[in-house]
């Protein structure tokens, strides 16, 4: 079982890859809308990627109002 820190780290790596961000530039408390300049639709794309990676189902409502990686990691962790 992954720890929350591991989950967060994996999410940061996936987001870095998916949105072609500079390696090491994303952090747990970052606001991904602001940091990556993405919109709500692109966040949904990231969700699909997280689902495949963690082998979980993550309904759209789980990211309602979430804008930082840390909270996103908590939502993922609760479904692992």
């Amino acid at each position, binding site marked *: 079982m992954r720890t929350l820190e591991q989950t967060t780290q994996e999410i940061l790596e996936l987001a870095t890859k998916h949105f072609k961000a500079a390696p090491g530039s994303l952090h747990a408390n970052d606001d991904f809308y602001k940091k990556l300049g993405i*919109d*709500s639709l692109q966040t949904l794309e990231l969700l*699909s990627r997280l689902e495949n990676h963690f082998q979980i189902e993550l309904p759209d409502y789980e990211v309602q109002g979430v804008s930082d990686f840390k909270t996103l990691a908590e939502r993922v962790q609760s479904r692992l």
Partner: protein
Amino acid sequence: MLDLSKYSSIGEALRDALETWPREVCLYESDRGEQKQRITYREFKDSALPLAKWLQDSGFKSGDRASIIMTNQSKWLISAYAIFFCGGTLVPLDYKLKPDEQWTLLKHSGASVLITEYPIWRQLSLSAGRAEAANVASVLVTEAPPQTDLARAVEWESASGDGQPAYVPRKREDLACIVYSSGTGGTPKGCMMTHGNYLEQCVALTSLYPFWPGMKYLSILPTNHAIDFMVGFFGPFICGAAVVHLRTLRPEFVREAFTKYQITYVSLVPLVLKNLQKGLQARFDELPTGKRRLFERLKSWNKALTKNRPVLPLSRLLLKPVHAAFGGKLEAIIVGGAFTEPQTLQFFYDLGIPVANGYGLTEAGTAVTVNDLRPFRADTVGKPLPGMEVRILNPDMDGIGQVSVRSKTVMAGYLNEPELTAQTIVDGWLMTGDMGRFDAAGHLQLFGRKKNMIVTEEGKNVYAEDVEQAFEGLPVKEYCVFAANYIWPSRSMVGEQLILVIHLEHGQAFTEELRKEIAARNSRLINYKRIHGIVVCNEDFPLTASLKIIRVELAERLGKLERSQEILPA
């Protein structure tokens, strides 16, 4: 043209439709590509009436208000019909708002019943706002996991009364819905829409974009939004058509739904349309040179042959793979909620996919003008729909002035806001706050706003005042939020941004610490409400006797300054 003259309410028209098309499918529900439900009009009625009876048994009566906070799904529409059947007024709220915002609007609306989904209720029930909205006496929750503590709510699935409910008739001038055109923070703007408003709007819209049994509408815009309520519920139901709901809006499943259900119409906000354009363009760019050349040639033929009007069978033949990706039956994409850039509209039209671009606002009963596609014009928002009188107030030398509308679709007013209503509806004319002019062909063109607000590409209305709360207690003498275009009119409807104007204390400097404090507060706001820049003002804000900022005057003062030099990064 659809004749709805015999009906006096939404409930009556829907009730008739359920009897007229019993065997037709009215709803499909799909989750991650898998079809979960297929409901006929008869089954819809059989689900809604026991709920109506339950509501009546619980004391819900004519004129009472019931709110729905749900994602797009069959139970949204079933619940709405049950409310109308009982003669109730529907308060559709945005499921994307924060729980405290939802409670604020629930309180403001005076709703006695709330119908919601379990994941939303989980958040709502924990919010402190619940205690404030004591008017909400009953809560119905759909899809709750077994043996869950519902915090005094009732399972929607078990809310079933025995026997037949009594149908409660309503008149055209009675209130059908209270629709909130923006979030909270300032004055909640609850548009009071009558049954007559919806019946008239339905006739006007279907005159250009008709529905028929067997056609399928893909419902993506939230149903609480005026557009989806009309074209994703009322319009198709009146005509015996079907609505497709997806439980997830991930792009891959949305794409799949087009082909799986052979969608006829879909409504999108500009942001999604642009995203679709980007995806398609990337695929075109990947084509090998030979194929690419052939595609470009076919596209130019299509463009020439559809210059005066769409010829869908021809476009489907010429650009078969593109149309096949959309299911092959797509008649038009309806785009709304915000301004769409002409090049995006043109991109789709050149592919033989008409985009029904228009102009509307909740206060006017959704659409005011719509492109009739004869010919297609990407540079305008179309001509007024039948029954709409549109005029330009105080036009300047270029013919540009405020757009005002008179029609039977215009709302009755803002709930509990007589003053705001009187400022907005003057002698029967709705002051839209948008600037526009008519061209020689009678098409409306838009040139920015007169209102201190922005509309995002996702179709979110954000009033500048609503954002100010986030900066309460900021260590400055005074502050104010403006839409940049309100101060510096740009005659443009794109790239609208909010800015924070601060006036520092005497001797105070604009330090990095203060900038960080602003940035921190800004990041706590939901992404589309954030400010994009800061303006430091060196003089006292003009105030009323009751110490309220006179925004018009302050904006005028700031407008004399150079925009590009004044806005500092937030």
